[in-house]
């Protein structure tokens, strides 16, 4: 394995694969905070150059976090299809990138090689891609999933209605659901982040959302994004949950900080299959985001892009209905400005899609980042072009519970209109029946939440 190269007259010798991986990343404040980022653009390109010549078997034979030490590594390693891996093991990362971007590699070819790739290999290919490469590659992959309805088809952009309330008042949550539905959002999920993490409270919100869905015959799915153990308690007490949710990290320690491990996810998986209220076969909702491992001091000296990719390696074990990266939530010490957030959003979406996941994105930012709503407009359009499965809809993008800004119900309608995209087919039919949408366009009724009262 060669870890040495010359760039612009200077020789660069890297210590190990971890260093090459970290330094090959585009600039991120999180990698700088971890003290593992490239010192300058020359060193960055040197690392990319070294990485491009490494083979896929080099990456597999030199694990960044050995399977003996980490259960996420074990899940990833066990998921690799050996036959497919053997066909491509001698490819360099450069060849992998070129194959993925070639016209020969269509949706089904990419899905096939995905089964032979580890999360680290997929991360490596992302490190060699420009933003437009990430968009071009991801746009070829359609990962269609089904819970109560199907989303992810070509030409479809779905949306989560995120109707959070600062005190979990059921009436207030309902009001924001009505607003979202009236703009044509809500086909991915009606998903609430609760303030109060108790089984009773989760159950109340699940019951209310189910009631709204039943009353208006809405083809979608509900979810309350409490800790997985709280949801499990609520479900065992009879709460109607179509899906089960959890945030994931890319290492065993990181997941421990989230209060989960693979055994617990397996148990939850079993429960939702037996006691969930939806059709399936996809029952999970996962959220991820670059930097969460470093913030829990569980990154093992590995860069945040690679750790993020490992989250997807864990997620794919459970065939989720939706996965999204909450790209700008974690703060400026991980992604400093709009440039870094936009880059991370495109990377995460691409890596998730390459893992075969139904990838969405919470296009978002906190107020102490150098980002504003215009940047969200940009990333939203870029991801729509890249074929993102769903984005998040919050009233005027302002989440009054989580105190950050995402994309709005208006934005989702605009992404669809500008990019020629439609809601999920079953949901669009319902919107037409309600008189909210006609031929893919919002009608004069749209935007009036009282039509549901």
């Amino acid at each position, binding site marked *: 394995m060669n870890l040495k190269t010359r760039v612009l007259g200077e020789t660069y010798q890297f210590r190990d694969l971890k260093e090459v991986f970290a330094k090959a990343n585009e600039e991120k404040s999180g990698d700088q905070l971890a003290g593992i980022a490239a010192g300058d653009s020359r060193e960055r390109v040197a690392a990319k150059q070294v990485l491009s010549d490494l083979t896929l078997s080099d990456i597999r034979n030199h694990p960044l976090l050995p399977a003996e030490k980490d259960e996420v590594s074990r899940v990833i390693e066990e998921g690799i299809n050996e036959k497919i891996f053997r066909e491509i093991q001698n490819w360099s990362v450069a060849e992998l990138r070129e194959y993925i971007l070639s016209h020969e590699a269509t949706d089904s070819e990419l899905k096939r090689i995905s089964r032979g790739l580890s999360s680290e290999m997929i991360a490596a290919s992302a490190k060699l891609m420009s933003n437009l490469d990430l968009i071009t590659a991801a746009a070829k992959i359609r990962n269609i999933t089904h819970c109560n309805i199907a989303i992810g088809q070509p030409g479809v952009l779905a949306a989560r209605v995120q109707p959070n309330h600062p005190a979990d008042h059921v009436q*207030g949550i309902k009001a924001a659901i009505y607003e979202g539905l009236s703009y044509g959002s809500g086909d991915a999920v009606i998903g609430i982040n609760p303030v109060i993490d108790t089984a009773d409270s989760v159950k109340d919100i699940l019951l209310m959302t189910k009631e709204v869905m039943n009353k208006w015959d809405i083809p979608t799915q509900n979810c309350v994004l409490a800790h997985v153990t709280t949801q499990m308690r609520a479900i065992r007490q009879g709460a109607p949950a179509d899906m089960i949710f959890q945030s994931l990290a890319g290492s065993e320690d990181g997941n421990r900080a989230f209060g989960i491990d693979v055994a617990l996810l397996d148990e939850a998986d079993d429960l939702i299959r037996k006691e969930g209220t939806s059709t399936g076969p996809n029952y999970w909702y996962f959220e991820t985001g670059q930097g969460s491992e470093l913030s829990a001091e569980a990154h093992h000296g590995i860069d945040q892009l690679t750790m993020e990719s490992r989250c997807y390696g864990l997620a794919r074990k459970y065939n989720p209905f939706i996965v999204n990266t909450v790209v700008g939530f974690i703060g400026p010490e991980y992604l*400093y400005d709009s440039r870094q957030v936009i880059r991370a959003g495109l990377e995460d979406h691409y890596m998730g899609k390459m893992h075969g996941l139904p990838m969405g994105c919470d296009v978002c930012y906190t*107020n102490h980042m150098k980002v504003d709503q215009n940047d969200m407009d940009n990333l939203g359009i870029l991801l729509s072009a890249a074929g993102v499965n769903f984005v998040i809809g919050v009233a*005027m993008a302002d989440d009054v519970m989580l*105190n950050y800004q995402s994309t709005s119900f208006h934005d989702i*309608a*605009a992404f669809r209109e500008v990019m020629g995209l439609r809601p999920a087919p079953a949901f669009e039919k319902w919107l037409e029946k309600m008189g909210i949408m006609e031929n893919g366009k919002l009608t004069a009724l749209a935007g009036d*939440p009282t039509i549901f009262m």
Partner: protein
Amino acid sequence: MEQQLDVLVDKVVAELQKKLAEMSKQTPVQAEPALAVQESAVFADIAEEEPERTANVPHPKWEEGLLELLESTPARIGVWRTGVRPLTRTMLQLRRDHAAAVDAVYGEVDQALLEEFSLFTVETQYDNTENYLKRPDMGRILNEEGVRLLQERCQMRPQVQIVVSDGLSASAIDANLRDVLPSLLDSLQSYGLSCGTPFFVKGGRVASMDHIGELLQPEVLVLLIGERPGLVTAHSMSAYMCYRPRKGIVESERTVISNIHAKGTSPIEAGAHIGTILSKMLEQKASGVKLVL
């Protein structure tokens, strides 16, 4: 126990409000014109900040229903649209609230306010705002000059050490310190507690209290610090308290009152409440999850 605490807090607040009322009566109008202007500016700012909760849907199916929805949540609903885009007023409201939040992060605490309370300033190793945001670790350690200043000017081993820091919102300090600090000092006095030399930390993070704890070795320390600003308010302050703060303290050993602002926990009440909690900490020689309130 909790009831007793409430009664105590109420008493102190009542006392203080009486005093403040007397003070305002006594203050001649012409005495402090600069201050008066400043105060009215603060009030104007707060008034402006009230979200304009108007229903914009032109012909809702159910008019009263729309008002009912608006009353049920602070979320920006019933805003209407032009095509698929928001109305100009709604869009500008959002931009205005974001601007206030950004100003809070990049703004500086009013020097006159610090002088009013005789707070001298020390800095952490943060160096500049960009670095402050990227390197939380640097905001946890005072710089050399800061260490020297503390050793020179502060009383060592005080019973209670009060520290103020801008944190992520300078305007949180501007908006709340004038109410919180006097009521806190009053409360400490009513418990018969003595206070060290208070000061201001520029570019501080919550864990800067550990470094300060090592240097001054107070029995208890309270850090009044600006919170990450949201759009609902950019002026929210937190009070972090710790018994014998030192390096290696974990988050669960700190007690916190958050959400201190005009529309959250009232600043005057918060000051009194902090005093009560600090006295409990001294009594029980504990803070955070180990403290019984």
